[in-house]
């Protein structure tokens, strides 16, 4: 095979056509060409399918919701609210004497599936109206479909401006981000008397980004100053660089738009580095888990919401009472919105000339002074409600009513748009902390983070050294380590009283359990593939990784809700240098990690077992001829690697306290970064993994502190590509010659 071309003229292809086939082809061409030419008036893709309301029998409405996926808790709230509204309405005789029937489809929290679900509701179930969704990205996908089929869509709780801009069919009952930003700004300005506020937003979430921008605009229009705009990516575990920058600008409050799981995590970290001012949030914070995840760090923080169950209005009292009777717990803001979405829709059905799409949409748009649970709803010309919002405060782990903020009476003065490009590129205000303090803090963070990365990277490196494949599932063993530690801490009761005994006991149990997990994975999934091509093992590893991630979120495993790791040791400051605290937890993490790395180093280079491991790594066949039991060495390697991962998981829990669900991108990113560290250090080399981990941690922390926080992952992968180009075997690795 000396000459290669892309022309597919290889043997085996029949040359030319047989007579019969040629005639058939000619006939086909004759038939198709004129037809294609005449296609100009081809019916548009969306034919005029509107709702086909039969005029009798139940009135069918569609509901698409995130019953599964990472927004499942939103979907559940939404669903309960709508269910109550429908049940109450049907008990009162339905609409026009006809009962309401809801067809509910799950969109698995994915936009593409939301579009499919709405298509199915409209064209297969012929619903007269659609209700949904919570997240704006999903409502945008579903709304486009509803608009094109001319079926009204009632959005319960997507706050992004763009949702109702889709067209006249889409209306909502929640306030929009522009208003919410104003509410929080107004509250900060009038009630907290703050003039200097910092912002920390999730650049990955449109919700967070949009809210940050609206708050920014409103607060400056009210005469306040934004000290700095910092960004993070949902799933970033270490935000100390951003928080330090925030602290340096001395704000009187910090606006933290994002979802409740991030908010909890961030408050913990903020309190640790000594930020004591109140943190402010938006309706994404509203969850009964908020105070639990954030723990004591959440106390005294405020967020805006659609309603509070403590409001004195009769609609709220009645709703809370009936809801508790039906479901047994206090409804949250999303539930109230789901309820109101149903109510406004039924009210419009009462008033509409017919249940046809256009008539019903017009009736919905004509909603005036509707007394809903979440306020008096009047839809404006963009089908957005004009109503007031409430501010809640976290007190003793409870969400309490703080204030009601009415809509602005006069438009706010225009202020120039904040320079978006500069956002997150370091502190914008005058830094008050010393440069040396910042450097030292970054250094401490680098060491702690590097130690964690090293513990994971060692697992990758050990397995790669012995078996020459990337154990993608390793990061998930780490995740399981953290969660197992959490479960044990709860079971053994260490959660309530931190004692000196707790940490070592949990450490040992978690390490043993994860070793067992690692060995099981190796036995069941990898050993049958010992002689298979490398690609197969890689795919299997990804399969194992997906399996662990997704079984971990099942209700009978660790559950689909993020949790808060109980404090196993009481954190305190050991020493203070240049305003930087050296904390007990950081010290424990660092000492333990260094001890484990040194122990591993001794094991590999000073013991018989270590010699056997190195022999297998060097040449498995020869090693086996020398009498080394390869299976045993591999098993032990997996046991050690997984135990290290478990230790890493526990230390992670100690340091960062909040545990995301097992399929969350935090873990994937963490594992990936550690893997990059192993590759950069020279995969297969113990020292290389440790050095690579420190290097990557340094790049991340210093890059985030001194360059841009938004690009920290870009730095990591850029380093990876550069190292692969310049020194493919990594810093410590030896280039390997593949022998035939």
């Amino acid at each position, binding site marked *: *095979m000396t000459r290669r071309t892309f022309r597919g003229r290889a043997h085996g292809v029949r040359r030319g056509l047989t007579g019969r086939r040629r005639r058939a082809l000619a006939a086909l061409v004759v038939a198709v060409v004129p037809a294609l030419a005449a296609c100009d008036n081809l019916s548009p893709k969306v034919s005029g399918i509107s709702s086909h309301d039969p005029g009798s029998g139940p009135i069918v409405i569609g509901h698409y919701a995130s019953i599964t996926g990472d927004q499942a808790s939103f979907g559940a709230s939404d669903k309960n609210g709508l269910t109550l509204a429908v049940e109450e309405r049907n008990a009162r005789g339905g609409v026009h004497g006809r009962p309401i029937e809801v067809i509910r489809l799950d969109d698995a929290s994915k936009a593409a599936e939301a579009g499919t679900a709405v298509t199915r509701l409209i064209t297969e179930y012929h619903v007269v109206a659609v209700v949904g969704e919570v997240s704006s990205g999903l409502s945008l996908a579903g709304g486009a479909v509803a608009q094109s089929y001319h079926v009204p869509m009632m959005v319960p709780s997507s706050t992004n401006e763009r949702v109702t801009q889709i067209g006249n069919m889409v209306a909502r009952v929640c306030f929009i981000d522009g208003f919410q930003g104003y509410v929080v700004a107004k509250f900060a300005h009038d009630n907290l008397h703050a003039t200097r506020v910092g912002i920390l937003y999730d650049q990955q979430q449109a919700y967070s980004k949009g809210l940050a921008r609206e708050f920014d605009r409103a607060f400056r229009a009210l005469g306040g100053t934004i000290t700095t705009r910092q960004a993070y990516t949902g799933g970033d575990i270490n935000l100390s660089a951003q928080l330090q920058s925030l602290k340096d600008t001395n704000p009187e409050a910090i606006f933290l738009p994002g979802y409740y799981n991030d908010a909890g995590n961030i408050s913990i970290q903020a309190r640790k580095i000594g930020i004591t001012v109140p943190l402010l949030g938006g309706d994404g914070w509203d969850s009964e888990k908020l105070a639990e995840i954030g723990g004591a760090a959440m106390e005294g923080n405020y967020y805006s919401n659609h309603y509070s169950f403590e409001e004195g209005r009769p609609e709220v009292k009645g709703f809370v009472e009936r809801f508790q009777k039906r479901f047994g717990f206090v409804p949250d803001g999303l539930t109230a919105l789901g309820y109101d979405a149903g109510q406004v829709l039924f009210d419009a059905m009462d008033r509409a000339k017919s249940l046809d799409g256009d008539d019903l949409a017009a009736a919905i748009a004509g909603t005036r002074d509707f007394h809903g649970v979440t306020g008096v709803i009047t839809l404006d010309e963009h089908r957005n409600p004009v109503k007031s919002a409430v501010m809640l405060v976290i007190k003793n782990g409870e969400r309490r009513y703080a204030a009601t903020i009415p809509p602005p009476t006069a438009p706010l003065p225009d202020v120039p748009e904040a320079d978006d490009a500069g956002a997150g590129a370091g502190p914008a205000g005058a830094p008050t902390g010393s440069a040396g303090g910042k450097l030292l803090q970054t250094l401490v963070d680098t060491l702690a983070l590097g130690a964690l990365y090293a513990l994971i990277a060692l697992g990758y490196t050990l397995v790669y050294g012995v078996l020459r494949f990337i154990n993608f599932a390793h990061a998930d063993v780490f995740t399981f380590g953290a969660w197992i530690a959490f479960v044990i801490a709860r079971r053994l009761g260490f959660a309530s009283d931190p004692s000196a005994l707790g940490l070592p006991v949990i450490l040992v149990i978690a390490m043993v359990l994860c070793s067992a997990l690692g060995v099981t994975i190796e036995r069941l999934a990898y050993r049958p593939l010992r002689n298979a091509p490398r690609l197969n093992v890689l795919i299997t590893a990804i399969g194992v990784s997906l399996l662990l991630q997704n079984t971990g979120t099942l209700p009978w495993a660790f559950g689909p809700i993020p949790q808060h790791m109980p404090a196993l040791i009481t954190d305190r400051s050991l020493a203070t240098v240049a305003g930087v605290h050296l904390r007990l937890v950081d010290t424990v993490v660092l000492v333990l990690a260094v001890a484990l790395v040194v122990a591993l180093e001794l094991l590999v280079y000073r013991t018989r077992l270590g010699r056997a491991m190195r022999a297998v790594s060097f040449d498995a066949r020869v090693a086996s001829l020398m009498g080394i039991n390869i299976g045993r060495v591999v098993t032990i390697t997996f046991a050690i690697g997984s135990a290290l991962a478990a230790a890493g998981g526990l230390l992670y829990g100690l340091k960062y306290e909040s545990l995301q669900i097992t399929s969350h991108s935090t873990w994937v990113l963490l594992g990936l970064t550690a893997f990059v560290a192993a590759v950069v250090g020279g995969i297969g080399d113990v020292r290389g993994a440790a050095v690579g981990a420190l290097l990557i941690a340094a790049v991340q922390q210093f890059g985030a502190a001194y360059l841009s926080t938004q690009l920290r992952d870009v730095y990591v992968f850029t380093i990876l590509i550069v190292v692969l180009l310049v020194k493919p075997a990594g810093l410590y690795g030896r280039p390997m010659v593949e022998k035939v």
Partner: protein
Amino acid sequence: MKRIAERVAEPGAHRTAAGSAALASAWPVIAGVALAWLLQQWIAPAIGPFYAKMVLDIGIAIVAASALNIVNGFAGQFSIGHAGFMMVGGYAAAWLTYYGSIRLWGTPGLHGGFLGGGDLLFLAGCVLGGAVAAVAGLVVGLPSLRLRGDYLAIVTLGFGEIVRVLIQRTGDVLAPADAAHTALPDTLGRLGGALGFPGLPDYTRIFYVYAAVTIVVVCAYRLKISSRGRALLAVRENEVAAEAVGIHTARVKVSAFVMSALFAGVGGGLFAHELGTTLNPRELGFQKSIDLVIMVVLGGMGSISGVILAAAILTVMPELFREFSDYRMPIYALALIVVMIVRPGGLLGVRELWDTAWWRRIAGNRRGPRAIARTARREDAP
């Protein structure tokens, strides 16, 4: 082998047959395009919009998965960031149709009928998307494909993440009134950020999708039975041995990778303009890449018909099992592991559907026309 050698030795011999060969290679394309037209004109209206959308989704999945199959199945390299190429292509196409429509007609809405101005712009967008994705593929592939296979997996994964972060950082899409008098280069950074690209016209129709399917599948098939394809399969089986027989392994790998990225980019363009999808960085993230890998692996790495089948089944499955979606991913993952252990080449392996025993039993004992299956991979390579 010998026959290739003979043919190469006398190039004139095959040049004379070029005319009839061109016809021979044209008929699958014509048949595919005719089928696409048939699907759109008669089948889609008959089955209703929802099933028509399923057919459309299947088509896009086939384009993307077949693209991945070229690099993953044929070349044996492992990309787990292919959705990143879809994202690059989708955004390039969206940029062209959105800002191009405003330039040409003053509004980003649908313009013209079937094969009218708007449709042509959309098709140009898909081509642009493919081209941009191909360039991205070259940039990613050049460094990593010189190295061992595992690194490609990591680098493609990193690539997907980097693209995602960069697109998230882009500014809001300009409103039509503003976009009309903004220089085109200044609109490049206006792609909507994290919430996605709003207001895209829904140009994607069954006809275009299946025309793309036809092109991708025919290209993949021609590649598979060409000498370049054989070279790829050789690289996949044993890179050292392939190099020893004179295959420039890095070059064939990179060219396969670029071709794969190109088709993925086209798939992204189709995805972007479909009704009921939003083009956003989250939608075409790591999860999507993994979905594509699952399609290729379950269908059979290197089997074109197998991947088509898997893409169709895995697209329809979520609709059938909406209630069990909690267990969807664990089941896929388990299936992936079991298939890898029990059938290391994927369900069909490198064979095509018509090379399987049960197909021949159904279709009579006719031997499949393409004898490539004979080179079924050896699993016990030392």
